[in-house]
Structure formats: C-alpha cells, structure tokens
C-alpha cells in the first residue's frame, strides 16, 4: 500500500523534471521538428517571461517546405534531403525573398542540430573574406572529410556546406581563389553562394554552380503569410492595411514583416493598424504631396520649384524614394507624350546613378524637376 503511494508520488515529480530538462537542454532540437511557427523561445527564458524575438526571426522558415513561392529550389533541395547528391548552389534574387533562410533551413534539416556546427561554415560580409581567408580558412574547412552518419546513427550526407552569404561583396581576387578550391574539394564540400546581383559573381564561379533565381514574392502569397502572422500574434488589421504593407514592401518579405511588427508595436496592444500608419512607417511619400510637386512643375516658375525642392529636403524625404514614386507617376501621366516621358525617364536614370555615387540630393532633384518642367511647359 505504502509502496504504491510512494510510486504514485514520485511519478509526477519525475515527469515534470524530465520535461524541464527537455525544455532546457534540447531547445535546438525542437527547431528541427517544426510545423509550429513558434521557435525555441523556451530556451531563452528570463524571469519566466519569454524573451521577445523579432518576428523576422520568429517566422523564418524552419524547414525547406516552409519556404514560400520558390518551387524550383525547393524541389532540388527536397531531393537532396531524401538522400541524393547536392550540386554547388548559387542563389540570387532581390532582398527578402528567402535566400538565406532556405539554405539555413536546408542545412539544418540535412545535418541536424548536433552536426550543424561541424558541417556548416557560414561566412558573410561581416566576416573578413579577403583572399587570405579563402586560401586558409575555407580551404582548411573544405579539406576535412565528413562521415555519412550522425552521432545518433541516422544517415546524413557525407559532405559539408560552406555558405558564402552576400557573395557579391567579395572581391574579384577572392572569388578567383575560390575556383580551384571548389572543384578540388567537390568530394567533401558543397558551396552555396548567395547574392543579390548575379552579375557581380565572376563567370568561372557561376558556371560551377547550379543557379537559382529567387523570384519576388507574389501578392497573394505574401498577403496570406502576413495574415497568418497577424492571426498568430492576435493583431487587428483590416484588408486595406495589409494591402498597404504589400505595396510598400516591393515583394520583400522581410520588409513586410518588419513594417507589420513596427506598426503593431507603435499602435500598442488594442489599437487597430490603419493604412495611413503603414505609409507613415515605411517612409512612403503621400500621393497628395507628389501631385503637388507635379503641379509645381506645371507652373513654369523656377522660384516655386526651388521652394518645393527645398521642402522635400527639409521634410527629410529621401531623394531615392522621391525618384521611385515619381517614376510610377510619370509613366501613367496623360499630359506627357511618349517621347517626353522617355526624355524624363532617361534623366531619372542619370539622376539615380548620380545619387548612388553620392552626389548632392538638392542639385540632382533640381536637375530632374527642371527637366520635367521644361518638358511639360515647352515640350522639350
């Protein structure tokens, strides 16, 4: 009788201790089996309150299947997860389309949490990546051989992955130093290069990799993800505001989530997020302001234009933002002929280049607007 009671008492204690132990120790492994979008927040506990994680990390895809919209890459990576070989990869595409997320998720699935550290070398632009590092660190890492099993006995692919994130900021020399290394170590190592502009990667490298272009996310996918997040976080948001988030994000998932989180932080717990708020946060210039600018151009008065441009600078709007939005406006403007539009657009291209080179915003904007003005009022 007493024996039984004792067992009865011990059981729950042990169970809870076990649970606590699991929670504390194997947080990383919970990352692996996914589905629940909430990641391993339990490991970073503090005063019983979970540490707040930015949503861009919280909702980063945890498995390859989670990655939205990039079907070709997913198909290839899935195959390699099932056991076939993996080519050297080159991911390119605009920011926020999931390039880094995809390869991180894939390598985590391939190797599991324990092996991940030994098998994956991640180098990004924040690390020193000159030719010396390629020659020594990368080469050394690549030359290590890898076994075909995990410590727990499960099979895993017999190679290592070197992720070179933001590869377009690598020097030409460093890239050429990579060439031979890539081939010679192909038995034990796969490279994954990630960049925004494939044109900045030298030809010999691109020909050694399977290239995958990451598409800009489509409207419905981005919106459905955003809605999912909103539901998960319990935010009140109407459709027009979600639409605004999409419009300001340019298909950049990270930017969209960032905007959403900022908006929800700004309006507090119970306030609903509105369209205006989104525009306000994302630094987009209001339509009225742009219309006013274009009307100023019609006035054919240089003084008014000068005041208007000064005002842009004082309001703190970025010239590149003005350029972006003005471009959409000009294209759809009825009062200009096609030829005039082309003149204006050419000037826009030039101004954009000059701005990137670091030219003064005021002067460049003045030059652009005076071109528009002369096209509008004098027909070129």
């Amino acid at each position, binding site marked *: 009788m007493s024996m039984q009671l004792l067992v009865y008492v011990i059981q729950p204690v042990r169970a809870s201790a076990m649970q606590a132990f699991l929670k504390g120790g194997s947080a990383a492994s919970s990352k692996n089996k996914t589905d629940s979008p909430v990641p391993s927040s339990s490991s970073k506990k503090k005063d019983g309150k979970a540490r707040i994680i930015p949503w861009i990390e919280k909702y980063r895809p945890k498995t390859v299947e989670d990655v939205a919209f990039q079907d070709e890459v997913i198909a290839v990576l899935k195959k390699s997860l099932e056991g076939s070989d993996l080519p050297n990869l080159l991911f390119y595409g605009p920011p926020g389309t999931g390039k880094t997320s995809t390869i991180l998720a894939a390598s985590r699935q391939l190797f599991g949490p324990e092996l991940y550290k030994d098998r994956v070398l991640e180098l990004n*632009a924040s690390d020193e990546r000159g030719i010396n590092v390629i020659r020594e660190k990368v080469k050394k890492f690549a030359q290590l051989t890898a076994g075909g099993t995990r410590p727990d006995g499960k099979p895993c692919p017999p190679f290592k992955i070197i992720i070179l994130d933001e590869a377009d900021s690598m020097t030409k020399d460093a890239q050429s130093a990579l060439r031979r290394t890539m081939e010679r170590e192909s038995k034990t190592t796969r490279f994954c290069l990630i960049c925004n502009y494939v044109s900045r990667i030298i030809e010999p490298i691109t020909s050694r990799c399977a290239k995958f272009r990451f598409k800009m996310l489509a409207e419905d996918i981005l919106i459905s993800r955003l809605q999912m997040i909103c539901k998960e976080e319990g935010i009140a948001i109407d459709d027009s505001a979600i639409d605004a988030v999409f419009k300001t994000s340019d298909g950049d998932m990270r930017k969209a989530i960032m905007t959403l989180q*900022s908006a929800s932080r700004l309006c507090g717990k119970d306030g609903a997020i509105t369209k205006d708020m989104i525009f306000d946060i994302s630094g987009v210039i209001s339509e009225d302001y742009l219309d006013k600018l274009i009307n100023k151009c019609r006035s054919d008065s240089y003084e008014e234009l*000068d005041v208007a441009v000064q005002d842009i600078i004082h309001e*703190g709007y970025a010239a590149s933002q003005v350029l972006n939005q003005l471009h959409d406006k000009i294209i759809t403007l009825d009062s200009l002929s096609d030829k005039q539009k082309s003149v204006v657009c050419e000037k826009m291209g030039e101004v954009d280049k000059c701005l990137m080179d*670091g030219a003064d915003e005021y002067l460049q904007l003045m030059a652009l607007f005076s071109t528009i003005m002369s096209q509008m009022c004098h027909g070129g």
Partner: protein
Amino acid sequence: MSLWVDKYRPTSLSKLDYHKDQAAHLKRLVEGGDFPHLLVYGPSGAGKKTRIMCTLRELYGAGVEKLRIEHSQFTTPSNKKLEISTISSNYHIEVNPSDVGHNDRVVIQELIKNVAQVNQLDSTQQKNFKIVVLTEVDRLTKDAQHALRRTMEKYMATCRIILCCNSTSKVIPAIRSRCLGIRVAAPTIAEITQVLTMVCKKEGLTLPNEMAVKIAEKSGRNLRRALLMCEACRVQQYPFNVDKEISEPDWEIFLRETATMIAQQQSPKRLLEVRARLYELLTHCIPPDVIMKGLLKELLSVCDGQLKAEVVQNAAYYEHRLQQGQKSIYHLEAFVAKFMAIYKRFLEEGIADLF
C-alpha cells in the same frame, strides 16, 4: 556656462517641442520593452540626435547620460592600426565609423561583434540588449554597409543598432529593409519661432516676435542654427534691435561677392580671380558642395527662364563629378567657366537680337 543649444536640449520624449505624434510613437515603442533596429533620418538640425538620446534615456533611465570617451584601436588585415574615439555609457556606445575613411568596414566588423557578443551581466534589472549608435551612416562605404547586414540579424538578441543619417538614398536597400525608418522632418518656421521665444523667456530675455521670425527664416529650418544665431545676436546687442540685420557668417558674404563677380564679367582674367577666391573658401574648410549650392543660388538670380534650367543641369553634372573626383577645385572651376560661357552666349544673343 553652456550654449543654449545644449542647455535647452530636451531630455525626455515627453518634453520634445515638435513632432509630438512621433514622440508618442517612440514612447510606445520603448514601453514595449523591445524595439527593432532604427534608422533615423532627416536634415541636419532637425533633432535626430536629440530624439535618439531621449529614446535611450526613456529606455535606460538617467544612467545613459554618464558618458565617457574612449579610444579604441583596431587593426586592419593589412596590419594598419586605426584609432577611433567612441562615446559610451554603460548601456550604449556611439561611434562615427566614417572617421576612419575607407577602413570603416573593419570598425563595424570588430566593434559591433565586440559589443554584441557580450551579454548584459544582470539581465533582471536591465534590458537584455545594448545599443550601438552609428552616426553618418550615409557616409559609410558600401563594404561597411554590407558588413552590417548579417550582423544586424545575427546579434539581434544582444544588441540593437540605431543608425543616424541625413538621407536614406545612400543607405543600401538591404539595410533599410532591416530597420524601422524614422523620418525627422525639419521644424517649420512657426515651430522654430516658438522654441526661440521659449528659450529666451527661460533666459529672462525679451525677444520681439518679428525678430524671432526673422531668425527662423534665416536659419533655413535648422533649429540648431537658429538657436546659435539667436545667441550670437544676444551677445552682440541686447535689448534686441528688430531693424538690425542678422549677421551672417563671413563666408556666405564672401561667396555672394564671388557670385556677383562671375555675373559681372566673363573673361579668363576674371576666372583666375574667382579661382583664387574659391581656393580661399576651400582652405577655410567650407565643403565644396556647399560652395556649389551657394554659387548656384546666387547665379540663378541673374538668369531667366530656359537659361536657369541649363545652369541647374550643369551644376548637377559638375557636382556629381566633384563627388567622384579627387580635387574639388577643378570641378568648381569647370562649373564657373561653363556658366561664364553659357551666360556670355546668352548676353551676346540678346544684343544681337536688338540690332
């Protein structure tokens, strides 16, 4: 005794004089206990730094005001030693990486990693992250900006970055998409007037309203400049004399005279004289783009209609070359010569039309 600019700088978000909505937003952001990386942008003298310091204070309390200056040393891969001074408190560190020129990448890589890899000791009482304030981000090289990208994500748990710049045009999109942008527009004339009146009242001075408006207009919507000008007026003469011209910096007058010289006569000899004057401005550390803008403003007042457009295009063209080139005097001079040519042709055509 400190300058009025520092003396009356608001120290908490609720005391800010303008952009109150934004201040309320920031406050709510901070109250959440956590916030994303911030990118604060706006023209100079709009109060970016003031807002950053207010936010920090709101976050950590008065402790952030105990500042100390430190000199950190970094070594580039080519074994060159760099020294950069940082201003820091227990909770934040402020650095202007563009001080070290094209080696700023090294500073970013080392500094942020150093800060970010150390956890706060006592996370129960403090926030569990530190803050790195980077100023003049728009002057960072592309390399340095790329170096920021992944770092910003990787060390999100232990550190937040506040970037401060004049324009986001020169900040790469990858960084922009990782930050919450906060636009600080310049205060309006009315707002500056209000601040000036308030400051004078606190100083126990009477500032006539016309005078305040005049200073505000002269300041070009730059609050810091307005306050400095106001203080300068006070030193020169008190009680304020409304009719008195507000004194401008010497170099502005000098620049205006130069512009008049260009408009008066267009000849190689005059070009040489102008060149000497431009040199003088440059040796007094007036930035070349400011000279260019100043010249343009004055020169445009003598041109009309179509000519203006042409001059503006040329100014933009030469200023762009100036940014790319090495010696600014060449480009300034090229602009002056070009203007002379355009203007002279215009004048001659005008005379030819008369006959």
